[in-house]
């Protein structure tokens, strides 16, 4: 085996890599001190620390599995339910009023007046925001309007109320993006920096007030809630 170490590094293609390594700054440099006396001898060495904490934002929409507690200590139970807000309207025929029965050949008394409709119970949706990035804003947008074929129910027929004044629900307009609502900074466990840290949970209640003038059908749409800390 002949040749210098430099020769073999070049032959193996490692020379550029070695050069790169040498050019790189060292990852850490230790401080060394010594004391030769006389007694008593003391030596100090300093160690610099650098910790980087990135800003983050967390949004939960729905009954998730990440959260088992609330500010009060009793939050929504963890599960993997797919969240769809569903309402069932049922017709009531005057003049008694008498609820109509599904099926054919089901006789009921009817005065001939227009039926009225009542919606099922409101639907509750748990939501949560955590962040260390200051003010978090939430907007809502009907990404798909409530429609059944060519018939549409305006999204304004759906009301959303929040259980928490610190985490209000946006008012979703028929089209476009809602005005943003602020999630109040602070919350449980944010004492260290209550103007930067946010930990809020709420239950948003969706309610639908049916109108007699809406054509029958299965109406479906979609709302997207957006969180940002611009």
């Amino acid at each position, binding site marked *: 085996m002949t040749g210098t170490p430099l020769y073999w590094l070049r032959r193996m293609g490692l020379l550029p890599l070695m050069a790169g390594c040498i050019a790189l700054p060292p990852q850490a440099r230790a401080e060394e001190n010594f004391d030769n006396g006389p007694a008593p001898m003391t030596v100090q060495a300093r160690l610099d620390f650098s910790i980087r904490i990135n800003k983050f934002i*967390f*949004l939960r929409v729905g009954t998730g*599995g990440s959260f088992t507690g609330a500010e009060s200590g009793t939050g929504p139970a963890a599960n993997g339910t797919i969240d769809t807000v569903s*309402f069932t309207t049922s017709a009531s025929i005057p003049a008694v009023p008498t609820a109509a029965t599904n099926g054919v050949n089901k006789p009921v008394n009817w005065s001939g007046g227009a039926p009225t409709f009542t919606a099922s119970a409101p639907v509750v949706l748990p939501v949560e925001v955590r962040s260390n990035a200051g003010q978090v804003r939430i907007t809502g947008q009907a990404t798909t309007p409530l429609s059944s074929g060519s018939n549409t129910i305006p999204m304004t027929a759906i009301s959303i109320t929040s259980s928490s004044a610190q985490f209000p629900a946006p008012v979703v307009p028929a089209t476009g993006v809602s005005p943003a609502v602020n999630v109040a900074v602070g919350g449980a466990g944010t004492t260290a920096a209550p103007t930067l840290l946010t930990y809020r949970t709420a239950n948003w209640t969706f309610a639908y007030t049916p109108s007699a003038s809406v054509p029958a059908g299965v109406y479906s749409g979609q709302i997207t809630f957006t969180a*940002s800390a611009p």
Partner: protein
Amino acid sequence: MMWPSLCRLRLALPLLGLVAALCNPVAHAGPFEIAISPSRFELSGRNTQRIGQSMDIQNLGGTATEVSVRTIDWTYSPEGHITYHDALLPGSCRPWVTLERKLVRVPARGKAAFRFQVDVPVDAQRGECRFMLAVEGVEPAHKALIESGGASLSLPVNGRIAVAVYMALNGAQPQLEMRSVGVKDIGGTRKPVVTVHNSGDAHGRLDGSLDATDGQNKSFELVPEGTPILPGQTRTLPLTPRLAGQTKAVDPAWPLKAQGTLDWDRGAFKVNADFQ
């Protein structure tokens, strides 16, 4: 004839699995439980420069999920109203952005890194490029409507996190000027405010706090809202009373006195004011 039957079964089982997977489009749908870090990027760049960045998408849920990532434009009014735009706004720099991919699958209780890069064109002017990365759950189960049986109105909800990206081009900088201090009714609550103008060509923010006392000589801090002041904007920002070590809101007795320094990116404002 035992072997041919088994063979048919062995062939049929994967097919059945495939059919089941195709008939179950909601298999990966679920609650939106996503954390993004960092929640915003504040970068700088120059002509012809390529700037690559990465963000972590973390799924806190107990099941794997898929999210889509795309760019959107946004506007921010002096009143603090944010609006998102799918369509390109005039002057948008979104065409400069390349995303690693459109869909990201994030494992349960896990995270995925997502990379994007901005290629600043040779003719880019000095100023600030702003866009957002919208991270949203892939369409939640539309099939749930059909399966719910009897529902006459169904409204799936979806979550989205919009990550702001600011890029100061060719040395763009904020230049904040404090116009006034005062008191304003915000959302039905009387609040001390500062009015700040940005005459620069990049966004700026206020930081820091003021030492304050109220009419009952109670001491606390006044902290400015840290939302962005975009170039050319004049914004009136509330000062929120805060008591160190407490998370509950402070309800000061008027009038208030405050002094101290409010910082911004390239300077600070000395404040010594009475809020009546």
